[in-house]
């Protein structure tokens, strides 16, 4: 389940935490559109500052930089204050998404009394909440406990890929597909909704393989998921992916690949969506040439679950060079930001 060398390498990249941030304030709060109730609507998003993901103690996922938002020594009092701040920031919003840089259901991050305070704070004003958790914290007793508050919940699990080899050798998730399946089944048995996160283009695999992996992963999880969010890689600080990227050994996926993945997954039987972070920028999903419209259509079709316009636009573009390039990259057993390394090398040659 774990590739020890990889895990250690990732761990070593994580910085020593500095406690300079205010423990009484969430990392951030903002509004965005999502469709947690089957239609696009304003959703308030909040990242709580916690002691961090349980998996950080051992390692971290290869692309996860949320440990940067973590403080050590967060106590219940701090979390209560953060919850209060969030409450005062709702402005009438009815849907909430809660991130903790780890697992909301991990009692070491969000102790039971904090969790209770959280649900109690919002049960009157909010109609739907999405929280995230690693599979190991999705236990019947925890679910029993949260169901008490009677708030409609969707629980998001970062599966990343249904391929255990990729999870272990690329993502370094410290879990596997079977554990996901058990958790998903348990949620369904408890009538709780599930959002599954998949990563598009984890490190060390080719973009072509990444597309095919995400498509087959969607198919593998569709039956268990209320929706599936395809998250194209976004390069975060101090992560292994960043270390690769800085050396020209990783390129975030192209927008074309995300569109391709969405279009090929839309008939999977569940809602498939993507709200890319850092889209059209160097550290996020982007084509070689800026394409604002494509990114916009990806988000819009995700929100509306109507992919026709995206399909049409996507098909209108000449992608022959894109196909050739990802095919060439796929011929390499060793993955890199191939185009960049080629151009570095090529720059050494006379050019006129």
């Amino acid at each position, binding site marked *: 389940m774990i590739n020890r*060398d*990889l895990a250690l*390498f990732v761990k070593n990249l994580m910085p020593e935490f500095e406690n300079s941030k205010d423990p009484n304030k969430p990392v951030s709060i903002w509004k965005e559109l999502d469709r947690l109730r089957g239609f696009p609507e304003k959703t308030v998003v909040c990242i709580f500052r916690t002691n961090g993901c349980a998996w950080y103690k051992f390692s971290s996922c290869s692309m996860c930089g949320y440990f940067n938002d973590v403080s050590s020594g967060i106590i219940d009092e701090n979390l209560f204050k953060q919850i209060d701040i969030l409450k005062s920031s709702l402005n009438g919003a009815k849907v909430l998404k809660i991130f903790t840089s780890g697992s909301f259901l991990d009692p070491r991050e969000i102790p039971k009394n904090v969790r209770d305070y959280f649900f109690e704070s919002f049960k009157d004003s909010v109609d739907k909440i999405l929280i995230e958790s690693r599979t190991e914290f999705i236990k019947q007793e925890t679910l029993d406990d949260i169901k008490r508050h009677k708030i409609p919940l969707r629980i998001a699990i970062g599966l990343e890929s249904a391929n255990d*080899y990729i999870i272990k*050798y*690329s993502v370094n998730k410290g879990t596997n597909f079977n554990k996901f399946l058990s958790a998903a089944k348990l949620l369904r048995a408890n009538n709780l909704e599930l959002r599954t996160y998949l990563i598009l283009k984890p490190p*060390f*695999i080719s973009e072509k393989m990444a597309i095919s992996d995400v498509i087959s992963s969607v198919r593998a999880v569709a039956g268990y998921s209320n929706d599936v969010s395809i998250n194209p890689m976004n390069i975060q600080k101090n992560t292994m992916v960043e*270390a*690769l990227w800085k*050396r*020209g*050994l990783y390129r975030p996926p192209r927008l074309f690949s995300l569109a391709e993945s969405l279009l090929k997954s839309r008939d999977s039987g569940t809602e498939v969506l993507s709200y890319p972070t850092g889209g059209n920028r160097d550290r996020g999903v982007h084509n070689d040439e800026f394409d604002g419209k494509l990114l916009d259509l990806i988000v819009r079709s995700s929100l509306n679950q109507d992919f026709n316009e995206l399909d049409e636009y996507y098909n209108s573009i000449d992608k022959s*060079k894109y196909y*050739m*390039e990802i095919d*060439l990259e796929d*011929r*390499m*057993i*060793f*993955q*890199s930001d*191939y*185009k960049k*390394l*080629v151009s*570095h*090398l*090529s720059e*050494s*040659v*006379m*050019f*006129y």
Partner: protein
Amino acid sequence: MEKKDNVFTFGNALSLYYKDYETPLIINTDDINQFKRSDKFYVLGNEFNAEIKYPYFMSSLYCIESGDIVMVYNAVELIQRPRLIIKALMALRKKYGFSKLIYLPGIGDPYIIPVLVYAGADLFDDIYIKEESINNIKYTMMGKTKSSDNNINDNLKFANDIISLLRSAIKTGTLREFVEKFQYSSRAIEMLRIIDNDYFSDYSMVFPVYTPYIKANTIESLNRPDIVSYRNYIKNDYSKPDVENLLILPCSAKKPYSKSKSHKKILSRIEKYRKYIHELIVTSPVGLVPRELESMYPAAFYDIPVIGLWYEDEKKMINDLLKSYLLKNRYKNIVAYIDEDLNFIKSSGNIILIEGNILSEEKLSELESTLRDLTINSPKMDHLFNYKSMLSYQFGTWIKDYLDDIKISRSYNMDMVTRNGRALFVFNEKLGRFTINRNGACIFLNAGKKIVYIDDFKPTSYVFNAGIKDATDDIKPGDEVIIVHNNEIRGVGTALISYRAMIDLDHGAGVKVR
């Protein structure tokens, strides 16, 4: 030899015809892709696992092997730091010798391939070329340019032309020339300089002992392994004859120098003093040439652009070498008879300088009278010195212990070293080297030098590598060798490849028998 049995080496570079392909080679990755499975792929018939590979900076790993091939899977990462890729290539050739083909996927830049071949890479692929082609880059003899379309076929042709030139260069012994003059990429030049500077001792072990010519057009020529080896010999191992006088002379374009107009004119003037004088020619890139080595390789085989100006690197090389030489080889009198452009040597020792137009009557008579005065009552040179010195240079100073009672004779226009009327060595002017005569072979057997050990057969025109059991590690391509089975001399010949290649390879010829 049929085509299948072609094997040539030049330094770490290998050109062989094998299983219907010839190296160096640019692999068509369509062929790989066609048979690729999710877990496996095949390179020239060798199966590899399609596993995730981590970068060198994470894992310090860089290769996997299967069958005939060792693949530097992250070549594209390593080459970003030229020292890394060269380190990998040198290490792999050292580890595997010529028993594996080294494959560098994804870095087949035709302007960089030559130095990589020189460093030991055998296999490349078309991925890089295709990537550049779809970005409309076009390859030309002037470097790359941007064109309006995809030049994939032209570019592949360009790259494959380079490859076939490289094969020729390995076969004809001109690879170093090609790599040195192929100055399109600063990265390639860095790599060549790294090989020359950091891997001289390894590389000189496999560098041919002679090549058809040395066109010292670039500053990198100063660091050719064969030339550095020569200068090291002069610096560390050479011993002067027992005479008291040294005459330093400038070089000439014509080789050997004594056949040039200028040397002929000077030598005819000082003919009667020459037996009391040792002559030393100052030049670049070979540095110093004692007269008796002037017909040998490399002294008689180089050519350099001359405009009467010396580069600082040449001056320093010459001065350093001359200082070392004079420290080790003591003369009573040193006369330098040189044009003014060479007067930078004056500080290298206690030198009587006669500088100016070396062909002027005035200077010639000054030289003549100087030498007349110096050579009064001076000891004469041993008439065997020249040949002993030449043999020592070619085979090593150890051979001096085996040269008692030799004589020199000349027949059919060839100089021969004989003992008891039998030829031991014959000097081949065209190669600038001696060949070992059958009668001379026992010297090498006794000394344990230059021996190729073979199975029990009678060697005819070639000894094939399949029949070679072992070889002494002093054998470089082009070396004279003796062929031995069970302590019994079976023949003499010329090594076609280095000792390591003879041992590692199981096809192709290793020795041309005489």
